[in-house]
């Protein structure tokens, strides 16, 4: 009997038992839909995080106080952290900015950061206040939507001016345009708004949209007090090119080791590159995707066992039919083909429906994410579709083998006598 005939018979047979076929398929549908949706969400998360890390700025390096073994972050500690670590200072920043000592370094932007409450006409919001230099904007890829960024004049004059992220502006003004020139209060002190940034979306250090930037010197003197005057929290460094980032990291490390008089391997600072971020997050999302996919795969396996179960019931039920077919001249492989076609068709149908459902789920997740303001798009890859449909067909084939071979090996005499 040819394959097309086997297919036709399988369709006839499954059609004759619609309810049962539907319920059997459901296991595979749920499994495949779960795999598709999970992989889509995982891939989407990865793409979104990779994108936001890229938006931090290319060629970017971060320098923190504290040993690399500790968690990165301002004042982050680990082994040997605490008061023994020498803080980064403005003179460290100047030394790194020296083109002779560190030829791979393009721009250096020191910053101090703290949280503060911003108020305007009764509205208030708490946000990250960063004391920055004019270099900060190019290093972090910040773009001005309106007004200007902090310049040398503001630094020298320790002026009370502020550049707001669009989210912060929205929080206190209700809108992000036409606010340049207004005076707001940060921790009770008046600051004049000189610029508003372009929205960038979430970043690795929290949203840059939800922040306020003031001149470094102003922050140092009036808002964010540190023990020594030239102490800084983070040093943002831009390498000359993306390729020179590792080299820049080496140069910075050497300069700081010299200045802090620490031996190699006992650094009291951490140089973190964008690649480090990417790698870390790719590892995390990769593990997450595999984990989610694995859980979904288990449900696919359960669906396969469901198929086997139903096929076994079906073989028992149709023992007489099998006996009759054998009496009429069906060979073992005809019966085998018939039942294998049925089970793989079941799971293939389940796979196709599952792909559609999974895609819908992923789409819905994307809609919810967009509605809640997250820049997150689940990605349904063709590889995921091919993988899960072929995997489900293979599962149908695999779990169909045992019932089908049981059917094929029935003795015609016994099968015909079966009641």
């Amino acid at each position, binding site marked *: 009997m*040819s394959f097309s005939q086997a297919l036709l018979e399988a369709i006839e047979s499954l059609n004759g038992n619609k309810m049962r076929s539907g319920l059997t398929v459901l296991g595979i549908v749920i499994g495949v839909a779960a795999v598709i949706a999970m992989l889509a969400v995982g891939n989407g998360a990865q793409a979104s995080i990779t994108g936001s890390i890229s938006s931090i700025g290319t060629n970017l390096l971060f320098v923190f106080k504290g040993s690399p073994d500790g968690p990165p972050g301002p004042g982050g500690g680990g082994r040997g952290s605490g008061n023994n670590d020498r803080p980064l200072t403005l003179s460290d920043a100047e030394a790194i900015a020296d083109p002779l000592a560190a030829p791979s370094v393009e721009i250096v932007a020191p910053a101090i950061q703290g949280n503060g409450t911003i108020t305007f006409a009764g509205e208030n919001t708490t946000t990250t206040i960063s004391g920055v230099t004019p270099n900060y904007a190019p290093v972090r890829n910040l773009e001005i939507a309106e007004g200007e960024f902090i310049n040398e004049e503001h630094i020298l004059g320790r002026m009370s001016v502020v550049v707001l992220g669009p989210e912060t502006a929205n929080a206190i003004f209700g809108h992000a345009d036409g606010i340049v020139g207004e005076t707001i209060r940060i921790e009770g002190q008046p600051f004049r708004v000189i610029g508003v940034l372009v929205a960038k979306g979430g970043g690795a250090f929290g949203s840059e949209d939800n922040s306020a930037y003031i001149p470094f010197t102003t922050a140092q003197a009036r808002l964010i007090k540190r023990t020594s005057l030239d102490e800084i929290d983070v040093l943002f460094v831009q390498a000359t090119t993306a390729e020179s980032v590792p080299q820049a990291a080496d140069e910075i490390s050497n300069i700081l080791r010299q200045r802090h008089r620490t031996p190699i391997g006992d650094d009291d600072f951490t140089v973190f590159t964008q690649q480090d971020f990417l790698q870390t997050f790719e590892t995390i999302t990769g593990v997450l995707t595999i984990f989610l996919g694995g859980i979904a795969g288990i449900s696919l396996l359960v669906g396969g066992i469901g198929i086997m179960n139903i096929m076994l019931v079906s073989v028992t039920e149709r023992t007489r039919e099998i006996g009759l077919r054998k*009496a*009429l*001249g069906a060979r*073992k492989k*005809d019966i085998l083909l018939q039942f294998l076609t049925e089970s793989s068709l079941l799971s293939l149908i389940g796979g196709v429906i599952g792909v559609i459902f999974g895609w819908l789920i992923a789409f819905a997740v994307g809609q919810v994410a967009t509605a809640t303001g997250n820049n997150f798009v689940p990605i349904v890859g063709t590889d995921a579709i091919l993988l899960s449909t072929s995997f489900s067909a293979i599962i149908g084939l695999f779990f169909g083998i045992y019932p089908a071979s049981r059917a094929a090996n029935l003795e*015609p005499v016994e099968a015909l006598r079966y009641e």
Partner: protein
Amino acid sequence: MDLVIEARDLRKTYQMGEIIVEALRGVSFTIERGEVVSIMGPSGSGKSTMMNTLGCLDRPTSGDYILDGESVAEMNDDQLASVRNRKVGFVFQSFNLLSRLTALGNVELPLRYAGITEGRRERAQAALEAVGLKDRMLHRPYELSGGQQQRVAVARSLVNNPAIIMADEPTGNLDSKVGKEIMSLLLNLNKDRGTTLIIVTHDPTIAEQTQRVIRLRDGELDPASEIKRKG
């Protein structure tokens, strides 16, 4: 003499747990092409075993069985399947039609397993016409009466032009009037087409209509009822 069946010293033993059952204890006979033969015997006489062996559903434990020139006793499962497909048509007591398929689909089944695609439908239609079911071809078994279902089964048995038709109590599930109709249908087919007909039955009125009766008792030919021949 054109022999379609040649059975020599057929023996069949079954292992039922610890006991070995001898269902056939050395049976020898021949059947000529075009003959109508009935096989009779009380239950336990080896009647079913004989039918399974003659129908190539099962192999004898020992002995020779030559069906239409092919020695069947040593064949493997797939070869047996092929012989059944080409040379044997079955008519069962309980019809054994597939309820999912139409009458036509049921009759087509043996042709499907024979790998015939071209003219399959036409041959199945011709077979159904031959049993008088021209206008019931697209009905499913549950839409047909018992007699009609058995007619479909008869059409199915002859669609592949087999050497023999094995009928196992073909009228057993039918009332006497319809049973007579089926019997005369089978006998007419034998007359018109010359197909050898073997009927397994315990109904003497059926056996009377056949040219010859093979009686079995305890797995052997019953010597008391030697072959009787009708003209």
